[in-house]
């Protein structure tokens, strides 16, 4: 029941993540590059939760992104699930609460998701979708997302990560938590 409640919360946050860039930010200037809030949410899920059920949530977040853009379902869902998988598996071994690590991880995850998405789009439409402009857009989007991530993670942790028992259960599975940002087990 708790998982369903948090799942619904994640999907609603996903819709909010679609709404903010599409209205608030782009109404100032549609040409602005916007951070990918959905991806920040995804990285958070992979790092702090990483359960198989969360993989389904990552997939649904990708579908939300797909539904918010072209008439094609799957490219974002595919890109997000791959990024989630890699991060969730990494978080089995490494779990670091450093802002710098969050920044670097979100930056790398955004670039990976963007190029996976463009790759899938190129595959489906058999069109040339990657250019030097795509690279610059991806780099800026990654940078902006990475800037926002350390600010949003504490909020997400409050809303989405359960009590100490959950953290304990992660620890019992061999995941170390260090608040100084330097450790791994």
């Amino acid at each position: 029941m708790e998982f369903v409640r948090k799942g619904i919360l994640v999907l609603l946050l996903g819709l909010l993540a679609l709404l903010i860039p599409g209205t608030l930010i782009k109404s100032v200037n549609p040409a602005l590059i916007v951070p990918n809030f959905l991806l920040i949410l995804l990285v958070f899920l992979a790092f702090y939760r990483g359960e198989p059920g969360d993989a389904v949530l990552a997939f649904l977040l990708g579908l939300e992104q797909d539904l918010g853009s072209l008439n094609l379902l799957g490219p974002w869902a595919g890109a997000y699930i791959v990024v989630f998988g890699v991060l969730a598996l990494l978080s089995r071994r490494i779990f670091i609460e450093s802002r710098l690590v969050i920044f670097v991880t979100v930056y790398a995850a955004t670039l990976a998701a963007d190029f996976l998405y463009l790759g899938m789009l190129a595959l489906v439409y058999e069109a040339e979708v990657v250019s030097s402009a795509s690279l610059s857009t991806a780099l800026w989007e990654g940078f902006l997302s990475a800037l926002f991530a350390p600010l949003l993670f504490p909020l997400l942790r409050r809303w989405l990560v359960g009590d100490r028992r959950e953290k304990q259960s992660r620890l019992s599975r061999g995941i170390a938590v260090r608040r100084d940002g330097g450790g791994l087990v």
Partner: protein
Amino acid sequence: MAAVYQHTTKTSLTVGVLFCAALLLCAYTKERPAVARLGASWVGEFLRPFQALHGATRHSLLSWWGDYIALLETQRENVRLKTRLAALEAQNSQLLEFKKENVRIRGLLRMAEEAAVEVVVANVIGYDPSNWVQVITIDKGSRDGVRVELPVLERNGVVGHVISCGAGSARVLLLSDRTSGIDAIVQEGRARGVLQGMGRFRARLEYVLEGGQVKVGDRVITSGMDNIFPKGLLLGVVSSVGPKATGALFQEIEVRSSIDFTKLEMVEVLVGVRPREDLD
């Protein structure tokens, strides 16, 4: 350790299955876009009230800023005059806005009459949340007569076409999107090609043979061959013609759209063509 291994295997398996599901969805919805359209219209309808609320709030705040904050220094001079002046300015600003809107709508209607077409005028209420797709959301949908694949225009030319439609909102793929391709003609030299979006509000004319006479400043119009856009609508102006590469079959032509997409507020959806006598 066994528990960690089991957990990792479970997560990997779930991720693998879901990735395959994503690929299958891609293939399925490419062939049957109606499924994706239905989902997109649900999401669009869910988000529409928030987008409309944001649009109205933004408009009010901008008016408030223009009417009161800009006049703050003047208002300090005289309290009595300040109240009177602010009220008049507010009224004046509103009237000016009405006047501008009137001119804009008159322009749109005149264009519609000249072309003998039926149009639905719509406001832009949202943009695509990602940086990769050039889509706008408008506040008119199926209950206003908007349908999928209808052309969307602005006073100065083609904006794009409707790709999904809910009851009260619709999503429009801009001509500058990478997945957009419009059959086009260069008005002066009559060279044929496809106007392909390049993202970031740019487009280029592709598949124009080397022999085709195209020069900077030429107007590019719709050819009417793609069954979406009627013939003769302005797409843009040739902004550059690339140097001819040795052995190249096609020319490299960049087109600057006639629309300033960053300032798009109102558009018109071309819902049908009427005989001229109906207009009279």
